[in-house]
């Protein structure tokens, strides 16, 4: 099945030229909070992608029956239900990661990307398009999260997915010269890294300024 131009745009746009974090500047808070290590960042990315895609589908399905005045509440109920489901699944099958992410799974409800996509896209588009849009935005969010978490875990802890990359013998404590950069573990550095990603992105995509 070849994707039509419009479908491609909906699905792949958010990965690059319409990225939710670096272009729409949504969902920054969670990008700062969960990117200290790769594993929680990845779990968070998958959860958000699933939730955005499904919430988009559900809201798009019922979009014509939602009264305009209470649409935000309806959207919130849909998102909250999905978040609770994901949270329960994580607790059942990946307990340690769920504990690491603690409140941030619950806080997906407040992630701006969700409300943003529901309001801006799902309320006015068909189901299939909405699904693609949700998937695309979730993946766009994931890319940035993984890139930031990669840098933060590598330089902040010397590991990737908990596996040691920078040898123990390099560290000052073991007679070497190296030291982890403590700033990488702090939220401030995540902000600077996101800024760097934005900087890089804008310099290669002149038109998205």
């Amino acid at each position, binding site marked *: 099945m070849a994707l039509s131009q419009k479908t491609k745009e909906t699905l792949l746009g958010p990965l690059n030229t319409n990225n939710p974090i670096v272009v729409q500047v949504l969902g920054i808070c969670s990008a700062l909070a969960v990117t200290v290590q790769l594993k929680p960042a990845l779990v968070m990315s998958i959860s958000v992608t699933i939730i955005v895609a499904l919430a988009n589908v559900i809201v798009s399905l019922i979009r014509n029956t939602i009264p305009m005045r209470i649409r935000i509440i309806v959207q919130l109920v849909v998102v909250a239900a999905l978040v609770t489901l994901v949270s329960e699944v994580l607790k059942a099958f990946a307990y340690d990661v769920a504990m690491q992410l603690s409140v941030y799974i619950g806080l997906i409800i407040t992630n701006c990307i969700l409300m943003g996509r529901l309001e801006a896209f799902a309320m006015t588009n068909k189901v299939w398009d909405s699904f693609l849009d949700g998937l695309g935005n979730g993946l766009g969010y994931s890319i940035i999260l993984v890139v930031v978490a990669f840098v933060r875990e590598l330089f902040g802890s010397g590991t990737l997915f908990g596996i040691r990359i920078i040898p123990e013998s390099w560290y000052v404590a073991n007679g070497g*010269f190296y*030291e982890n*950069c*403590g*700033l990488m573990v*702090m939220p401030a550095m995540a902000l*600077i890294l996101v800024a760097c990603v934005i*900087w890089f992105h804008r310099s290669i995509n002149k038109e998205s300024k």
Partner: protein
Amino acid sequence: MFKRLYKKVEELRPLFAEGGKLHAFHSLFDGFDTFLFTPSTPAGKVGAQIHDGKDSKRTMIMVVMALVPALLFGMYNVGYQHFLATGELVRGSVTCDLFWKAFGFGFLAVLPYILVSYIVGLGIEFTVAQWKKEEIQEGFLVTGFIIPLIVPIDTPLWMVALAVAFAVIFAKEVFGGTGYNIWNVALIARVFLFFAYPTHMSGDSVFVRTSGTWGWDEGKTLVDGFSGATPLGQLATTSDATLIPVDFWTAFNGLIPGSVGETCCWAILLGACLLLTTGVASWKTMLSVFAGGAITAWLFNAFGPDTAIAHLPWYMHLVLGGFAFGAVFMATDPVTSARTETGKWIYGFLIGVVAIVVRVLNPGYPEGMMLAILLMNTCAPLIDWCVVQSNINKRMKRSQKKEVAL
């Protein structure tokens, strides 16, 4: 002599001009040219001139000259503390030989920091200038000189290099280069080190060079009971609420552990005299920092909690740690400080207040000067805005009153 040098430089000029062989290095050439001579674009002979052809490099070089006493003394103190730790030297009995030995040791220990700071920082500056096709910006002359003076002498060089790169790129170049930065660049380098590598920036094992330098005096055993804690470090960790680690004149003289250039108050005062007589730094900022610090410390003496640091006499606060250095060289940075005259008083005063409050009330940070200056750097535009706004309001009222009277 000067004329010959000038001729030589002029002969070289075409090489670096557009189309010349070495055009790729033209910003380097321009940089050194204006550093050595007055720029070739002086004020015109006709018309009103707001300012002459004086380059900001002239101002910068004044600050560097003002920093030299602190640097030289810092070098001596590094050696002094080292030989004190190895027992080769006893406090109060320094012979001429020992003096030069200590100075030589300190010189060799500090030199790599200056080189690393300048090579990394200027490297980035020249690259950016070349890339953006701009004139080389000279702000790093001072920054690069200050950074070695405000780090502990045992900081690994690669960390300094990383911090300098971070500071120059993220505190300066992204804001538009020299004159546009919000925060003092040298302090950003230090704050990077402080939060990224806290074990190398505080504690009692980093402020005195206990190993050798360049293989000289390597592997010496230390004297019994040696402690490399700075006076402020001792105050932060002690349980004895009456402790006064050093007397005033020892601290003023500066033969105590600390970051390279911050310990000696008379060397800093010498620099302050130069800065004030040439009008490079604002006496209002400088004075109000000391005033703010002294008053806050005095208030803690009178009403503060029952800890050693709160009981420390107010005049001791002014001579310990980086207070004097920060007040003279960093708070007065014309780019990042307040620009209105009333604003300078407020800005300086608040730096003094915050620095002492952090020292006394936060046991995690024995020294608060760095954080105080950075915080007030952030607030400086706000202070200026308030001052200007209150002036506008005052004048508005005055003119309205006149209108009513008429």
